[in-house]
Each structure stands twice: as C-alpha cells, then as structure tokens.
C-alpha cells in the first residue's frame, strides 16, 4: 500500500532482475476513470484496513503460488486521494511460461477485488458516494474456486 504513484517498467525490471528462469511476465494496471454508473467522477478516495490489508494480499498471492508456477510477484495498491487518469493498482506475475503468468495475474486481481479490504468513495457532481460492490466481481472470483489447484508442467 502506498499513496505515491508507481512505475510499471521499473517494477517489472526489479522483479525480473537476475532471474534467467523467468520466461513470461503478465501485468495488470487499474486506472481511475472519469465515469462510473452513469455519473461523471471528479476524483476518488481509497480507504483500506491497515493490518488486515497486508495479510489479505499475502494470502491471495500464496494461493496463486499454490495453483501456478509463480517465480515472482509484485502487488501495489494505492490509497488516499486519486484523480481520473491516475493509476490505482498494479499486479505483476513472473513465470516460466505465459499460461501461468496470465492465469495467476487474473486470479490475483479477481481475488483482490472481492477479498482485500479496500473501499472507494467517489466524488461526483451530486456529491460524494461510496462505490457499491458488484455482483460481477463476485462471479469473476468464484469461477476460480471450481478449478482444481495444481501446478502445470514447467
């Protein structure tokens, strides 16, 4: 968790440095949009639960490591006041091959969105409002539970 912005290129370089076993890196960057649920959004504030957030993210990454070959992983989530165009969240997964990297990266984001204690409050033209949780996010996370854990061949 950090208030400051992050640099995708610098984080990827750090993750892959000196590890010639890494053959694939998948990354995801989430951004602040200026529109949500039909209203113009001028900014948002991200709150989290210090103490639990770190534990929840570590648990999600550990679960990804149990399911896929993960040679390195970086998760950065910003908190505090953000504006449209700002970066919010970064997930990078390094693996031997692309299949594990893509899957683990998507899994971590799906679980982060439904299990990590972050909350968004949007500023709109009609005032501030807490963002409501989406059922589509629950559905995205639950589809992983029907898949058996287990590493694919390297």
């Amino acid at each position: 968790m950090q208030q400051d912005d992050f640099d995708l290129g610098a984080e990827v370089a750090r993750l892959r440095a000196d590890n010639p076993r890494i053959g694939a890196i998948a990354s995801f960057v989430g951004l602040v949009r200026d529109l949500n649920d039909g209203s113009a959004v001028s900014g948002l504030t991200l709150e989290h639960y210090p103490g639990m957030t770190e534990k929840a993210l570590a648990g999600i990454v550990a679960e990804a490591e149990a399911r896929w070959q993960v040679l390195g992983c970086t998760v950065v989530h910003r908190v505090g006041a953000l504006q449209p165009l700002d970066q919010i969240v970064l997930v990078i997964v390094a693996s031997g091959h692309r299949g594990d990297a893509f899957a683990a990266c998507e899994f971590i984001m799906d679980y982060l969105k439904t299990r990590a204690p972050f909350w968004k409050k949007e500023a709109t033209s009609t005032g501030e409002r807490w963002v409501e949780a989406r059922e589509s996010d629950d559905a995205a996370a639950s589809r992983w539970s029907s898949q058996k854990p287990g590493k694919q061949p390297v």
Partner: protein
Amino acid sequence: MKLLYLASLRESLGRATEEVAPPGSVNNVGALVDWLRSRGEPWSVELAAARRWRVAVNHEIAEPATVVKPGDEIAFFPPVTGG
C-alpha cells in the same frame, strides 16, 4: 474488545472505533452482533441482517460462529470495492 467500523459503516454509525466489554456469554461473532443490536439504533439498523456487511476478527474474515474474546480486534465493514 476493540471494535472498528470502516468506510460507509464508520459514517453511518458515527464513529471509527469503540471499546466494549459485553457479558461473558457473548463469545462469538453472532452473539456479539446480537448484543450490539440490542443497544438500539444505530446498531439495530446498520447491522440488521438484511444489510450487506462483513466482520473480521483479528484481521481474518469471520463468520457468526467465529470465537471472540477480550482483547480481540473486531472490524465491521461493507463489501470491499478495491482494485
């Protein structure tokens, strides 16, 4: 035990934290919620069964049967919306 209210629940309950000492029979999350509701509004309204909220005990997601004891940190919050 220390109670924390986060995000929209902090605002609707009008406080971020409180220290409580419920009777000894309040030994799990379900009993704690019943006890909090018995204090009346705003808890009876904001922690009503129909509302969507979550509980964590000592930073782990909890269920009604999760044990609570003096010294625990118990957090109440709405469904998460990060990412």
